[in-house]
């Protein structure tokens, strides 16, 4: 593992962000937009619904955490897509950059991009809706971290598909996370889902995280078992995703796809 090579690739993405204000604006715009929209909906619900009177921050925090997951996932996929769009993948793959260094660099830049997007949104919540997102303290930070890691897992799966199928898999980068979103129980408890789907939901770390979040905000109760299950599943999915990436990489090398990722 070479820190110099990893920092080189991170530098490439930092240069790219610096050179393009629309990219930077987009990173900040969507989380803030989501927060403002759902903040007003939440304000309305506080007046109308007893549940939200108990925990006015529930909806906004759930929205924010969902956005953290989505940003973590899409920023991972986007970093790799940037290489395909700029036809630079060939140069990377003929350099001594190892697959796990590539994944490490994309992971780190995904964290930076997610932070750049989410922190301003959190800061806006306080003056605009009098919501202190950071109020629940460390448990919320752990939920945040567990979601970010799951975003990397889905991101690595997408990168694997991009390596194997090229730009044809681009739309999956956007779709895939929404496909499993209903099972994550972001805005409703898992028990709302049909029985069969409940079992599936509990196979995903976000379901445990959002269950934990509701317990934290509605009952002021931190359930460490939710967090432990989420992190254990994260670990499993990370191993599976990285395995899938290595399989896709080897398959692409067998079929000569690394120089040709176009349609």
């Amino acid at each position: 593992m070479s820190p110099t090579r990893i920092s080189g690739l991170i530098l490439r993405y930092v240069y790219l962000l610096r050179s393009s204000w629309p990219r930077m604006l987009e990173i900040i715009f969507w989380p803030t937009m989501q927060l403002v929209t759902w903040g007003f909906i939440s304000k309305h619900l506080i007046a109308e619904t007893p549940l939200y009177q108990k925990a006015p921050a529930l909806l906004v925090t759930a929205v924010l955490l969902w956005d953290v997951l989505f940003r973590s996932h899409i920023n991972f996929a986007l970093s790799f897509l940037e290489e395909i769009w700029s036809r630079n993948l060939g140069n990377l793959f003929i350099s001594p950059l190892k697959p796990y260094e590539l994944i490490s660099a994309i992971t780190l830049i995904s964290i930076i991009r997610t932070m750049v997007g989410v922190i301003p949104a959190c800061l806006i919540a306080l003056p605009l809706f009098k919501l202190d997102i950071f109020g629940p303290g460390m448990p919320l930070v752990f939920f945040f971290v567990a979601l970010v890691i799951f975003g990397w897992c889905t991101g690595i799966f997408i990168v694997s598909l991009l390596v194997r199928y090229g730009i044809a898999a681009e739309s999956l980068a956007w779709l895939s996370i929404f496909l499993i979103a209903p099972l994550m129980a972001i805005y409703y408890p898992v028990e709302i889902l049909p029985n069969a789907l409940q079992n599936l939901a509990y196979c995903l770390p976000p379901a445990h995280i959002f269950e934990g979040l509701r317990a934290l905000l509605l009952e002021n109760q931190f359930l460490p078992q939710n967090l432990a299950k989420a992190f254990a599943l994260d670990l499993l999915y990370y191993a599976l995703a990285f395995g899938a990436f290595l399989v896709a990489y080897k398959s692409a090398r067998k079929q000569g796809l690394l120089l040709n990722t176009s349609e």
Partner: protein
Amino acid sequence: MNGDPPVVEVRGLTKVFNGLKAVDHLDFDIQPHCTTALLGSNGAGKTTTISMLLGLLLPTSGTVTIFGEELESNRYNILQRMNMSSPYIDLPQRLTVRQNLTVYSRLYEVSNSKDRIERLAEDLELNEFIDRQVRKLSAGQKTRVSLAKALINEPELLLLDEPTASLDPDTASWIREYLFKYQQRRNTAILLASHNMLEVHRMCQQVFIMTHGKIVEKGSPDEIIVRHGKEDLEQAFLKIVRNQREEKEKGQV
């Protein structure tokens, strides 16, 4: 050429895609301090061969040894000592020339990267546009930048895929001269894939001609011209390729 071991040793290299042999049992060496050309019509197997030399493509059978080490098991050490420039691979367009070279100097762990970039900028006359985004450069400027990226790690083996494609004669001549001087200075082995026979004749000491995935002719440009009784390399190349095509068609009949 001078008793040094070959930089590249290829033995029995074969690649089969869906039952079709794209590259069929190649055996060749690339000598140090030597410019070698890989010639062939479109689809002859040149790109497949170069991809296997870079480890981008896994061979179906055969071995590639570079710098005395087997490629597959020492790939990243070997890639550290070689590089490639191709008009079919771009550098990130929104980054400036300097930013691109900085990124690649880190990817190749170049220790004195600032000096190296300054030297390359001076040698390849990049200073005029070094802080300009790559997307704003002309084709000739982009070729020079791509070459700078390929030389960032002072490679001992340089692969050049059509280094002067789509360049005007003046720029193309400038690039050829620069590569010649660079090779004299650094003793780099160069493998060149090109369709420009005049360029190959001027630059290369050794030529491999490929058709249908096989090397059908080897030698210096002059040897090949004399052997086939032609006036220049292009005529000799056309004779070889057409003969091969006819033989293949007869074989199929």
